[in-house]
């Protein structure tokens, strides 16, 4: 292993693990402490703020992380409320049973509201959730047995394990529930699941190539969000005592979204700020109804225009700028090395480590072959790929070349499952791929890069390297939420692998940089790094050198190929730089007008007439 990443001097407090949790705990304890001096009404207001903090945080998960806007959260709150009422009428359980019911019902309705996200994008999804919100309200109105219809219904007083609670006692329960809900959301967001949601939001294409099922991720986020709102609904029912279907209006849905956005939808604590601003301050200041709404409506619009990050986003930006850990000088440029130098250096390094490059037999075991059999891809009347067959032997590097429009990228997209097949089949190893299932590819060990970069805006280089290991994290969501040993081990290993890959590609100094601040050539490296960090058995490189200077291209391709040989991966390299391809590949497949015109070792293809003609014109 080469030199460790340079350790930065960080203040003591920054090194305490889980300091955000401690801080949140402190805030909750402070509220506990001052609760004694609150009047009944003030305790009520604080409880309402706590409830809306949970609902706001549910948008942090759903909208902030997974990018799915919902204006149907009033329906979810209603679900929690009516689950509470039904539970208290049918069973003898107190809030302990109601919370379970609220969470389960909330999650189920959340999934139902989220189902349209399988088919439609964010704006249409917002419309669909709006429609569902109105339907749900109508159902609440019509279901008079449970809800009392337009007249509303009384909620029984809160009990917990047989003990009755006063409004102040209810505040304590609400604080505990909020603490647990926030910890749950925080643990989900930090780790594999949160990274997956961020990946799906920022680049669905890349996310699916990394093995994430877009539908499952989105609907899962709706379920989690629904569970959070459902448990908020239990608290809400007991806090307001008296509920009517009128409460669960479209306006309430919008208010909950406004809370999350004013507070800052990327940060869980932003939800608390938003809830204090929208629900707490006006009550405390005794502002009258309409003015209060005008004020927060105006604030909301101003925030949308000038501070899309909300309060929390603004505070974080100020902290980054003026806080103790403010940015250091820009890191030095990446040093470029010609391919030959890299290969030599790598060999020297591995000899020094005492590890040999993978032997040919090991390569055969690890690398996986790709069989393309008579594949056709058509867009409308245009046949982009017209009966292409190619056999790619495990552990080899194969160049896929051809003039613009020859069908190279389309073929790659067919292998990745982004486009359907009009005929033929594609197999990785012994497994025939199912068309249009991009997430299936990663499970078989296929990784790919993107010609036009498909990076995750707003995330750091390190985030990209961790997202790249989604499929090989080795732990599930339960481990993640409870912070069990598999999670700790998995994160540690992925972090080490990420640093190793970053060093290999010259990104080690840039791990904390956000990708949109990087130069194009560096972004290209990040795109490649994300694909190779999980050690794919078959790596598809889509024009890795395009847009780079010849030196940059040489350097990047050289480093990746050395790495692939090392770990014994099969590589398909789509590239326009013919000289580069001829130099580094074992075999070249040339396409023109969607057909194979050459398929042989580089030296033979180079002299083939129709290949030369396709390139130089004829």
């Amino acid at each position, binding site marked *: 292993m080469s030199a460790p990443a340079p350790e930065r001097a960080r203040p003591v407090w920054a090194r305490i693990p889980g300091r955000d949790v401690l801080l949140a705990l402190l805030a909750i304890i402070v509220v506990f402490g001052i609760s004694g001096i609150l009047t009944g009404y003030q305790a009520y207001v604080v409880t309402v703020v706590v409830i809306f903090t949970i609902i706001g945080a549910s948008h942090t998960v759903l909208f902030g992380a997974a990018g799915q806007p919902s204006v149907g959260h009033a329906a979810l709150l209603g679900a929690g409320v009516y689950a509470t009422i039904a539970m208290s009428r049918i069973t003898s359980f107190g809030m302990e049973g109601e919370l379970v019911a609220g969470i389960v019902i909330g999650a189920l309705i959340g999934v139902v509201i989220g189902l349209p996200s399988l088919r*439609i*994008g964010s704006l249409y999804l917002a419309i669909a959730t709006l429609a569902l919100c109105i339907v749900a309200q109508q159902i609440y109105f019509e279901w008079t047995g449970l809800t009392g219809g337009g007249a509303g219904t009384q909620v029984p007083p809160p009990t917990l394990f047989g003990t009755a609670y006063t409004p102040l006692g209810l505040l304590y329960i609400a604080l505990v529930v909020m603490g647990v809900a926030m910890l749950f959301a925080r643990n989900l967001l930090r780790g594999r699941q949160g990274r997956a949601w961020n990946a799906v939001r920022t680049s669905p294409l890349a996310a699916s190539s990394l093995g994430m099922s877009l539908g499952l991720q989105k609907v899962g986020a709706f379920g989690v969000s629904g569970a959070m709102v459902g448990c908020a609904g239990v608290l809400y029912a007991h806090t307001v005592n008296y509920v009517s279907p009128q409460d669960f209006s479209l306006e309430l849905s919008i208010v909950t979204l406004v809370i999350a956005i004013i507070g800052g939808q990327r940060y869980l604590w932003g939800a608390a700020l938003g809830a204090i601003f929208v629900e707490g301050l006006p009550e405390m200041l005794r502002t009258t109804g*309409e003015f209060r*709404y005008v004020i927060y*409506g105006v604030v909301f619009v101003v925030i949308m225009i000038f501070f899309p990050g909300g309060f929390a986003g603004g505070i974080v930006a100020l902290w980054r700028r003026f806080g103790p850990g403010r940015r250091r000088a820009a890191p030095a440029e990446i040093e470029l090395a010609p391919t030959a130098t890299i290969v030599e250096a790598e060999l020297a390094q591995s000899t020094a480590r005492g590890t040999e490059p993978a032997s040919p037999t090991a390569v055969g075991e690890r690398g996986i072959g790709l069989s393309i059999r008579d594949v056709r891809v058509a867009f409308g009347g245009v046949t982009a790929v017209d009966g292409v067959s190619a056999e790619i032997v495990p552990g080899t590097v194969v160049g896929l070349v051809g003039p613009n429009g020859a069908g190279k990228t389309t073929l790659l997209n067919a292998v990745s499952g982004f486009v359907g097949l009009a005929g033929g089949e594609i197999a990785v190893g012994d497994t025939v791929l199912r068309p249009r299932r991009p997430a299936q590819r990663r499970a078989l060990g296929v990784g790919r890069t993107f010609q036009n970069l498909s990076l995750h805006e707003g995330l750091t280089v390190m985030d990209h390297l961790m997202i790249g290991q989604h499929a090989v994290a080795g732990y599930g969501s339960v481990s993640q939420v409870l912070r069990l040993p598999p999670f700790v081990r998995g994160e540690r290993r992925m972090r080490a692998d990420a640093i190793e890959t970053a060093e290999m590609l010259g990104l080690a100094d840039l791990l904390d940089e956000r990708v949109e601040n990087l130069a194009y050539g560096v972004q290209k490296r990040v795109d490649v790094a994300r694909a190779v960090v999980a050690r794919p058995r078959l790596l598809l490189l889509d024009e890795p050198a395009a847009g780079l200077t010849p030196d940059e291209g040489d350097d990047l391709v050289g480093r990746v190929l050395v790495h692939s040989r090392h770990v014994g991966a099969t590589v398909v390299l789509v590239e326009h730089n013919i000289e580069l391809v001829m130099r580094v590949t074992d075999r070249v497949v040339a396409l023109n007008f969607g057909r194979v015109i050459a398929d042989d070792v580089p030296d033979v293809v180079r002299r083939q007439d129709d290949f030369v003609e396709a390139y130089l014109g004829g």
Partner: protein
Amino acid sequence: MSAFLQAIVNGLMTGGVYALLALSIALIFKTMDAVNFATASMGAFCAFLFFQVGTILNLGWGAGLAVSIVGAVLLGWAVERGIVRPLGSGDLFRLVLATMGLDIVLNNATQIFFGSGVQNINAPLPAGGVAIAGLNIDLTRLVILGVAVAGAIVLGVVLRYSNLGVGMRAYAQDPQAATLMGVPARTVSRWTWIISSLLGLIAAIMVASVSVLSVGFLQGTFISAFTAAVLGGLSSLPGAVAGGFILGVLEALSIAYAPRAVTIALPVLIILVVLLIRPAGLFGRLSASRA
């Protein structure tokens, strides 16, 4: 049979208003790629101006119309200048969210300015009904239908033959290319909002004439008009008009023949079915970015 025909006639007359408000929604969507959730509150605010100046201040309907038209133009201009332009063309969903905020502001501003009471309107429209071929036709609603159809035709003519209309259509297809070709993007954006605001005003006056004037009185119509726009494909103006009339007729038929719950849920069910089966609506084309 005559009950059936009567339902169709009633539906067509309601559909005219839906079509008008759906045009207001579709026009914004076509050029901005965003749904204006403040459509109803913008129209309602201007309708209040019309009726307040017309009846309560007793200055006559002409003055009311003049004031409310100026109000609608100013409101459209202000929204474009104050919200749409500063937001820029980055994340379009931010514009949608901002219109939700605007809706909250306008609804409550209406309440502050004009009070929260419910006013019955004595609109300057002919009252009574006529019987034609055994069908009962309400004159007020007939006039409203006429105004709506005239409004749609005027809009169609303006968009087809004026420079502005050509610019709008070019801008809708590709804002960047249109700007490079010399289409004045700001002018197009400004007039889109002003025209949309005017359409909202007309629809709001029409709705108030046959119902009541109160804060949020246009919200129900907005949901229906929105459904009509979705049905027509959101970005298609002829689709919005057709969607308006189709929805009007479907609603009237369900009032006549279906249980009440179906009538109430009808718009929403249509939205869900259209979005899930054919998000492009009956007339729209779906661009990849929205899918």
